[in-house]
């Protein structure tokens, strides 16, 4: 759909997305309330987060009604962050190993390993 900035859409779309955002937020809160752990917890958090972010960007910020030129200009650059995140994850791992090497395994570390994710 070509539009030149004039973003007028039916009210019902906004109300539906609003309701959906409430539902998804409740679900993501329930992840903590119920107390899911490990990969189930992390994947649920990510799924709900991406769903919410997608709805806000697409509908509330009108991104799906913009032209591809603007969509790519805004959404492609943040993808570079994923490389940065990857590098910093490797770096964080290395720092942890170095610290364990030099400062040794304390009982802190033992706890850290059994309660991963906390």
């Amino acid at each position, binding site marked *: 759909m*070509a539009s*030149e*900035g*004039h*973003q*007028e859409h039916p*009210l019902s779309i*906004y*109300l539906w*997305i*609003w309701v959906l*955002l*409430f539902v998804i*937020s409740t679900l*993501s*809160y329930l*992840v*903590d*309330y119920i*107390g899911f752990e490990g990969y189930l917890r*992390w994947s649920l*958090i*990510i799924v*709900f*987060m991406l769903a*919410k*972010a997608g709805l*806000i*960007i697409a*509908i*509330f*910020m*009108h991104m799906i009604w*913009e*032209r*591809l*030129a*603007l969509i790519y*200009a*805004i959404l492609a*650059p*943040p993808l570079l*962050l994923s490389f*940065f*995140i990857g590098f*910093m*994850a490797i*770096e*964080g*791992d290395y*720092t*942890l190993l170095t*610290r*364990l090497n030099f*400062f040794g395994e304390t009982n*802190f570390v033992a*706890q*850290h390993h059994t309660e991963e*994710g*906390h």
Partner: protein
Amino acid sequence: MGSNVTESQTAALPEGLQGLTHDWSSDKQTFYVPWGKAMMWFFLLSDTFIFGCFLTSYMNVRMSTRVPWPNSSEVFALSFGGEPIPLILIAIMTFVLITSSGTMALAVNYGYKQDRAKTAALMFVTAAFGAIFVGMQAFEWTKLIVDEGIRPWGNPMGAPQFGASFFMITGFHGLHVSIGVIYLAVVALKVLKGDYEASGNYEIVEITGLYWHFVDLVWVFIFAFFYLW
């Protein structure tokens, strides 16, 4: 630049991938949106990188510490007379911000319908929800600093980096919300005064809305990675 793009100009433009190459080729206007909206998007893009850096550095310090990370579910629990409810304040803050995003979306809608009173009213409601959010954040900070002894350089629960990450990330987000409340109030007042009546151009409401939705968007990521993880 783009504010006077006419219907006939965009009607003849190709769509999809062809549209992408067409819009980017040759020395001419690329974005068929009002310049204010394009600039707001670019500002938000740069802000994305700032918050991206904050969250990445948080990930890095959390991964690299030997000391266990404080359990956010317990740190941010509140009890109303009985058992502490995990993360309850943060959940309420999340709902407050989503509610404000909804009222903002409605304000944009009424702006395009040139309904001055409803647009301004909805923007004031949005700003009020934003102010409530900041108030709750002030309460949260006070509780953490005074009652639980969390400092940017250490805390009784575990990894000292917890405080540094928390105050930096939520502080910068709170600053964005505060600025947004002022921004919303200023634009709402101008709408109410009828500053845009002559031109009938209510783009400014949508541009303000972009900023506000972005603030909500950032909170989605903070909620997921800092509070829930």
